[in-house]
């Protein structure tokens, strides 16, 4: 059985705010019955203050899906919608003192439900065109579609590339064979790990040209520009928000936002920027800036 924290168990055995919510004016239904986890989040939002006055859930899913739903309702109650939208899946997991890696998708689902419910309240259409795929990497809950898209989008060649970009395969190694199959399907062959493909240039390179601040930001923008078509293909987009030394803050919009792709997308952007600038840096979502 899973190694669930006390907090997860407690929220599973005594879920808070479960069942239908009378007078709900924002409802989000997310999840996948095929995968056995689905959640309806119901919000009662004060139309004047946009404060979430009450939040309930109904969940079809495993213990951690129920616990994550319960945690989510506790976290967002009495927040404004804008405050609530800042809640990340990691916040949900942290609230529960952590989730097993294989169950992190339960917290992702919580966050998606929140976004769907807020969109529903605001009369917007929330859509997620993340296609369903077979789960390949169970350690990091990465599916075949995501791996294939990331391989295509970034022209990845080796197992190590895939792990760097998606985390898939970075845990127990049991999925390496499946990932190699996807690499072969996309590239027509398997490139060996030793392929002369320098991806991370040495940071202390003596010949490293010194960029002025202006040149550096230009370079960052050019790099993002080059990545944009790939993101737009997935109905997403990226904009540069702030450059604070080694921390690059970007806003992801559209389909990239909130979904499981987000961290992979950020990772991919980071890798590209590291290559382009020849320095180690960190790419962060704009939400991280708001938190200080």
């Amino acid at each position, binding site marked *: *059985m*899973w190694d669930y924290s006390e907090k997860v*168990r407690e929220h*599973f*055995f005594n*879920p808070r705010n*479960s*069942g239908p919510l009378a007078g709900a004016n924002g409802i989000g*239904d*997310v*999840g*996948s*019955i*095929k*995968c*056995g*986890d*689905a*959640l*309806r989040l119901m919000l009662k939002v004060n139309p004047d203050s946009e404060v979430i006055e009450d939040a309930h*859930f*109904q*969940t*079809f*899913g*495993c*213990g951690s*899906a*129920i616990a994550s739903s319960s945690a989510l309702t506790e976290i967002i109650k009495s927040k404004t919608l804008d405050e609530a939208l800042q809640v990340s899946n990691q916040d949900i997991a942290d609230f529960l003192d952590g989730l097993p890696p*294989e169950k992190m*998708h339960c917290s*992702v*689902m919580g966050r*998606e*439900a929140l976004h*769907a419910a807020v969109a529903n309240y605001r009369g917007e259409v*929330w*859509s*997620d065109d*993340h*296609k*369903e795929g*077979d*789960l390949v990497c*169970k350690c990091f809950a990465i599916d075949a579609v995501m791996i294939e898209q990331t391989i295509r989008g970034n022209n990845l060649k080796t197992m190590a590339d895939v792990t760097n970009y998606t985390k898939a395969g970075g845990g127990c190694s049991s999925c390496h064979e499946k990932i190699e199959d996807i690499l072969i399907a996309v590239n027509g062959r398997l490139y060996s790990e030793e392929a002369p493909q320098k991806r991370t240039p040495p940071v202390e390179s003596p010949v490293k040209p010194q960029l002025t601040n202006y040149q550096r930001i230009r370079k960052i923008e050019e790099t993002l520009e080059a990545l944009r078509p790939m993101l737009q293909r997935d109905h997403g987009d990226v904009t540069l928000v702030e450059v604070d030394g080694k921390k690059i803050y970007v806003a992801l919009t559209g389909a990239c936002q909130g*979904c499981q792709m987000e961290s992979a997308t950020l990772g991919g952007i980071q890798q590209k920027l590291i290559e382009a600038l020849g320095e180690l840096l960190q790419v962060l979502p704009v939400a991280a800036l708001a938190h200080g």
Partner: protein
Amino acid sequence: MKPIYMDNNATTACDPAVVRAMLPFFTEQFGNASSIHSFGAEVGKALKQAREQVQSLLGAAHDSEIVFTSCGTESDATAILSALKANPERRSIITTVVEHPAILTLCDHLEKEDVTVHRLRVDRRGRIDLDEYKSLLSNRVAIVSAMWANNETGTLFPVEEMAELAHEKGILFHTDAVQAVGKVAIDLKATRIDMLSCSGHKLHAPKGIGVLYLRRNTRFRPLLRGGHQERGRRAGTENSASIVGLGVACELAQQHLETENTTVKALRDRLQRGILARVGNAFANGDMLHRLPNTASIAFEYVEGEGILLLLNKQGIAASSGSACTSGSLEPSHVMRAMGIPYTAAHGTIRFSLSRYNTEEEVDRVIAAVPTIIAQLRKLSPYWNVDGPVENPEQAFQPAYA
């Protein structure tokens, strides 16, 4: 309260008599059966006795047809790979969609090496279509591998008849009987089965010991080459303690075969009837007319299995789920999917598998516990409305994939 164990298809407790018989083989009887000296000779005698005990339970014609292996998985792999190697001109395999991963994953892998794999489909009750099977038998098929009993639903396949049909076409027949041995009567000498897999830990012997029955004169290629153990058919120093344990377990299984099909079966029936009488929107999976006597697979609609297991576990009841959520995969079990059980029921399928150690009192405790647990989880379910499913459940709740 004493915990209740109803997960015997996953693994069983070692019978105390099995443990007692094994202990000396860790201490004074530590010898290597291959050695000339007396340390080895004693062990050799014990292995011979164990082989005869297994032979007797399986109804094999000769004790030399029993090959000890390390587990059911090894026996399965040995059988299939041997058939392909020994018949290089035949490049296809017939199996079923509901086999254990020991077979299915191997077949998926062999497909990449240009072996053709035919997987017989099953109907809603988990039964194969014998006409489809017959139509696939040809001189290109190296081996048919069909399980005797399904581990999730207990459904029995007509393997004896299937073996006859394969034999008529000169095709080798293997059966994964890991779940069947000790629960159904087996008399291999009266059949056309060429190879059979069995695993100790499903019949109150230890984990990590298995058997491959290999009919005399069957073309064979070993998986593990090395020493001459098991007449060169499976190299590696014998796991003597476990082999002795398995021998005793087989003898006990033979003595209890009737208990299994009377007492244990009655307990299983009582459990299934009791639960279905008290919980609505629930049904039993599998072929009710041809089923292991100890297994009940019950689908509870609109709830997910892991939650049920966690709540059962809180009351000291151990069972297992057909939903694979607990095993780290998100898809429901391939067996439920193959039978066409809808996702909303497949994910809520619980397998209760009994043994001769279960009691009526335990069965009644489980019957008493289940209805409250299901009600509690349904209260949380988006498909459920106070005392029944919402109208048109599949339409009423259509989540977007997250």
